[in-house]
Structures are given as structure tokens and as C-alpha cells.
């Protein structure tokens, strides 16, 4: 009993949860405008895109892989949404679905390069990061698409029952992701591949199929995030989502997912995500400038991982 309690207390998620609560208290202390429903919901709106992509990224990193191309996929899908709708005259709802599907195809291409040709995920997605961004810029010819109909903005700027629309979508997908990763056979296969891909293969797990599905899901969800992003900022540009992958990976790794694979949870990712967003927003409200905020986030990332590693060694020893 005490042993399991001890291991529960020393879990990365627990440490992170405590850190998050401390941060929230400290930030609320610094600015009376931080802990208001209005601000918190607004922050939820701002973090939804990074959050969505981070859900799929958790799976990717748990398999020991990485997907650097998500920001570029977001840019590509955003541009295609505009091109499908404005230049090809496809009705907007169908253009949205097509855009998301293209995201899925882009993810599938990543998966094929990784599984079929044995290219390490870091290299494969570094290449497609450039490839997809280049396509986005080439297709757009640097024109932005504007003038979307009003109903489209409910997705990114509107709210349902007082909560931003995209937070509902994010919440639902987070729940689904948590169930799949934590409770399903697919989730167990994901962990197994991350712990030892060769052993998983010999144990009869369809490693390639699992990886293909995960990278495809990563692309699909980046596509969904693109549609939400376009709706939120009401325009399409080819440089959308530049650097998104770094925010996403930071949230996932801060959430305790091991970059070597085999370990990580959706709850951890959510905690990492919220902590990052709370720091960005809370420090800004407390009067810390942008450059200072980035320094703090870097320090928190290193600090959290060090603390977690020290406790883990203790627990193992």
C-alpha cells in the first residue's frame, strides 16, 4: 500500500500537477485578472490548436518517434482550405473535410517514409517539414484567402454554452485519446513499440500498421487544427503554424512523455499544455515581457524533467 502510494506520489504527473497548482496560485497572486472565467476560457481558446496536435504527438513520441512536420501540415491544410473554397469553388463544408483529409494524407506519407523505407522519424519529418511548407507557399503564390462567411467563424471565434467551440472539440478528442492510449489494445501496442520495436514485431504486433495509423492521425489532427486556426484568425496565410511543432513537443515532453518512447500519458500532456499556457498568459498579465516569459518556460521545462528524473532514480533504486 505505502509502496503504491509512494509511486503514485512520485509520478511525473503528480509532480507536474503540484507544480501547476503552485504556478496558478502564484500567477493569480500577481494579477487579479488572471483567475477570471473570461481569461481562462480565452486561454483555452488560444491553446486549442497546440493542444489538439499535442494529443496525437503524445502517441507519436510514446512510440519513440517524433513528428516535426505538424506545423507545416497545418500551413498546407490552411492554404488548401482557402484554395479549395475560393479558387475551385468547392462549398466550404466540403472544402473543410477535404482539407483535413489532405492533412491525413500528408501524415500517411510521413508514416510510409518511416515504416516502408526505414527512415528515422526525425529525418523523415524534418524533410516533410520543408516539403509541406514549400508546397503551401508554392500553392498559395503568397496570396492570402479572406472573406469567409460568418458561420465559419463560430468554430474559431464563437462559443457553445459559454465555452469556446474549439474547447469542446479539444475536450472530446482528449477524452478519446486518453481512452485509446490508456485502455485499449491499440494503446498497449503503442507503448510496446516504444519500449522495444523489435520485440513487439516478434511478438506478432503489427508495428508498421500501428505506426502508419499514428502518423496519419497526427496529420489528420493537424488538419483539423488548421481549420480551427483559419476560423480563429479569419484569414489564410502560407506561414501559418510556423514553429508550432516546438510548442507541441514542449507540451508533450513537459507532460512526462519520454522522448525515447514507451512512457507517457494524455493526462500528462494536458497538464504540460495547461502549465505552459498559464505561464505565458499569467506572466504577461503580471507585466513580464515576452522575452522573459520564454526564459521562464525553458527553465520550467528543464527543472521539471530534472526533478522527475531524480525522483525516478530514487524510486528505481
Amino acid at each position, binding site marked *: 500500500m505505502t509502496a503504491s502510494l509512494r509511486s503514485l506520489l512520485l509520478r511525473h504527473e503528480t509532480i507536474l500537477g503540484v507544480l501547476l497548482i503552485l504556478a496558478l496560485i502564484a500567477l493569480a497572486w500577481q*494579477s487579479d*485578472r488572471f483567475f*477570471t472565467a*473570461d*481569461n481562462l476560457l*480565452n486561454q483555452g481558446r*488560444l491553446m486549442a490548436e497546440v493542444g489538439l496536435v499535442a494529443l496525437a504527438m503524445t502517441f507519436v513520441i510514446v512510440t519513440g518517434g517524433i513528428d516535426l512536420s505538424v506545423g507545416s501540415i497545418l500551413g498546407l491544410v490552411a492554404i*488548401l482550405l482557402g*484554395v479549395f473554397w475560393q*479558387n*475551385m469553388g468547392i462549398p466550404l463544408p466540403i472544402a473543410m473535410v477535404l482539407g483535413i483529409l*489532405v492533412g491525413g*494524407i500528408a501524415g*500517411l*506519407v510521413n508514416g*510510409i517514409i518511416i515504416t*516502408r523505407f526505414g527512415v528515422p522519424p526525425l529525418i523523415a519529418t524534418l524533410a516533410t517539414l520543408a516539403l509541406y511548407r514549400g*508546397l503551401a*507557399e*508554392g*500553392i*498559395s*503564390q*503568397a*496570396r*492570402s484567402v*479572406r472573406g469567409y462567411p460568418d458561420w465559419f467563424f463560430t468554430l474559431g*471565434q464563437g462559443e457553445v454554452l459559454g465555452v469556446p467551440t474549439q474547447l469542446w472539440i479539444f475536450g472530446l478528442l482528449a477524452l478519446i485519446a486518453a481512452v485509446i492510449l490508456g485502455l485499449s489494445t491499440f494503446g498497449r501496442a503503442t507503448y510496446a513499440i516504444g519500449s522495444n520495436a523489435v520485440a513487439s514485431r516478434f511478438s506478432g504486433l503489427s508495428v508498421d500498421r500501428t505506426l502508419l495509423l499514428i502518423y496519419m492521425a497526427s496529420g489528420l489532427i493537424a488538419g483539423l487544427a488548421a481549420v480551427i*486556426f483559419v476560423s*480563429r*484568425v*479569419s*484569414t489564410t*496565410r*502560407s*506561414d*501559418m503554424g*510556423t*514553429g508550432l511543432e516546438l510548442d507541441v513537443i514542449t507540451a508533450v515532453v513537459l507532460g512526462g512523455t519520454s522522448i525515447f518512447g514507451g512512457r507517457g500519458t494524455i493526462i500528462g500532456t494536458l497538464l504540460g499544455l495547461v502549465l505552459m499556457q498559464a505561464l*505565458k*498568459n499569467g506572466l*504577461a*498579465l503580471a*507585466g513580464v*515581457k*515576452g*522575452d522573459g516569459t*520564454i526564459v521562464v518556460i525553458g527553465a520550467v521545462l528543464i527543472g521539471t524533467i530534472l526533478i522527475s528524473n531524480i525522483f525516478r532514480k530514487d524510486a528505481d533504486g
Partner: protein
Amino acid sequence: MIRKTLVAAAALAAMAGSAFAASAWTGGDDLPTNPLACDGTPGAAVAKPYDGGEPTGAPDRKGKKITVVDVPKLIGIGYFNATSKGIADAAMELGNVEAKTDGPTQANIDQQITFIDNYITSGVDGILFAANDPVAIAPVLKKALSKGINVVGYDANSQPDARQWFVNQAEFNGIAKALIDNMAKEIGEESAFAIVTSTFTTPNQARWIAEMAAYAEKCHPKMKWLETVEAQEDNVLSFNQATTLINKYGDELKGIFGMTSVATPASAEAVTQASKCGTIAVVGLATPNAMKPYVEKDCVKSVVLWNPVDLGYAAMHVLRAVADGDLKAGATSVKAGKLGELQVINGSEILLGAPFVFSKENIGQFDF
């Protein structure tokens, strides 16, 4: 599986093939152009009703101390350091304004929106901005107006109804004329040139390039445009892009336009390192300090710009006038401290003045 790969490749190729038509010069936008007369007759001002927005439920701020935040496209570059200095100077001179500058370290629309959003929550009285994208920034600025915050833009505009006033540093056709005329003077009427810009969608640069294309066609029809390249606002990338242009076109290339305060010195450096000073002219927009070495070595003859310190200074004065209720819809001019009376143009814009050409004779007098 190979078939699947081929299908995916074909799909990607088909997507690339769906690119749509471009305008005269790449990097220009598709808005109507209005080139000035070749001989320097000033353009006629067109009367237009006020088309800016109004804050809802703004408290009476007349003469009261206000807090103002300035969110430029990005921080940490010479140009926005200069506008920020102008804002601070004006705030100190006014005495009843607390102003600070904060913003993203990269010219990123999403980050800029987040910065403004946070400052709205923190409860400022006024926002000054230079937009990374005129449409993308509009929703968050409208939100600021709806919370009774005074919003004034400078340097890069948003949609007019998302802010109250915009301080226009120079009209686009004026800058375009100054750039093209100086290039024609340096390289002759029948030479070819290329352009290094930030990105094809950055609003100011796209507008200038479109106006340059229109003005060149009207007044210097034999000059030949070769290519426009994107270099973000990144030093190394700008240098590399300029070097690529020099290598790619060889002797055909006689001139490079730098469209940003980063691209122009980087292009001058590329020309210097390629030992092409005197054979390839660099004309562009830049701050004087960055250009002094090249101008003093005679590698660059004309640097076109306005004074960004004055731009920030004017923006701060306009914001104060709006907060005081002294600048209202329908006004034709506004007082801006030491700059005197500035004219209202295009409904809700305030013109800073004619562009300024820095040359070897005068560049030493400027320090920003």
C-alpha cells in the same frame, strides 16, 4: 505499398499544380494601384468619409493618466527599436502617458494576437500596433474596441474598422516612386533588377511592390524585373537570397531592391562580399545606422525611408488626441507635438510626410 506511395506523390503533385495566377511582379498584392506622375507632381488627395472603428463604452480619459502598450510586428530589430523610442519620447513629453513596448521576437501573427489579447485582459487604456497581417489581427483589435480601449495603428495597417486611426509613414505610391526613380538613376533605363522582400503576403511590402510595378511600367517601361525572393526578416536568409540572385543572374543583374530594414543591409553585404560594388546597385528601405558602412564605401547610394522615430512619436500623439476626444471622425488634421499639424488622408489615416532619401551627404546626421 509502392503503389500507395506513388498515389500519394501524384496527389501532392496535383496539389502543387493547382497554384493560381500571379500579378505583374511576384510579391505584389492584387489591390488597385495608383502610380504618381513621373515628374513629381504630388498626387491629389481624395476626400473619403471616416471609415475607422469606435470603442464602445470608453470612459472619459481627457487629460487623465493612461497606460498604453505598443505591440509592434516583432521586437529586437533596429526599426521597431526606433519607433519604440519615438513612442517613449512622446509619452515623456506628454507626461500623462505610461507607455511600454512588448511583442513577439518573431514576426508571427499568432503570437502577436496572443500578446494583444493578454494586454486587453490586463486592462490597458490604449493599444498601438503594427500588424503582421491586416485581417488576422482584426478580431482581437475589435475585441479591444468593444472593451472601450483606444486603438491606433502605425507602420502596418489592419482592416480600417478594427482600429480608430492609422498613422501612415508614407503613401505607398510615394515610396514606390522614390525607389524606382533612384534605381533608374543608378543603373540606367534598360537594366535588370531583382527584389528581396520579407514574405509575399506582408502587407506593406506587397503594396509597395505592386505600386513599384505600376510606376515602373508607366515611367520606366524598359527596366526589367527578374525575380522577387522571400527572406522573412532574417539576416542570414536575406544574405543568402541576395547571394543566390547574384550567382544566378550574373552580369544581367544590375540592381537589387531591399524591401525591409533587414534585407537592404544584407543585400549590400552580399554585393560587397561578391566584390560587385559599383556593378550591382542596392536601393532599398533601411535604417541609416545599418547602411552607414555601405554608403560611406560608396557601395550604396540611396537609402529610402521615413523617420521611424517620428512615426512612433506621431502614433503616440494621435493616440493621446483620440483618448482626449480631440481627434474625432471627420477631422482633417491633428496636432502632433514637434511635428506640427499632420494631414488626415483616406478617411481614417494620418500621413507622416514624404519619404526621405538618405545619401552619403546626409546619413551621418542620423542615429537610429
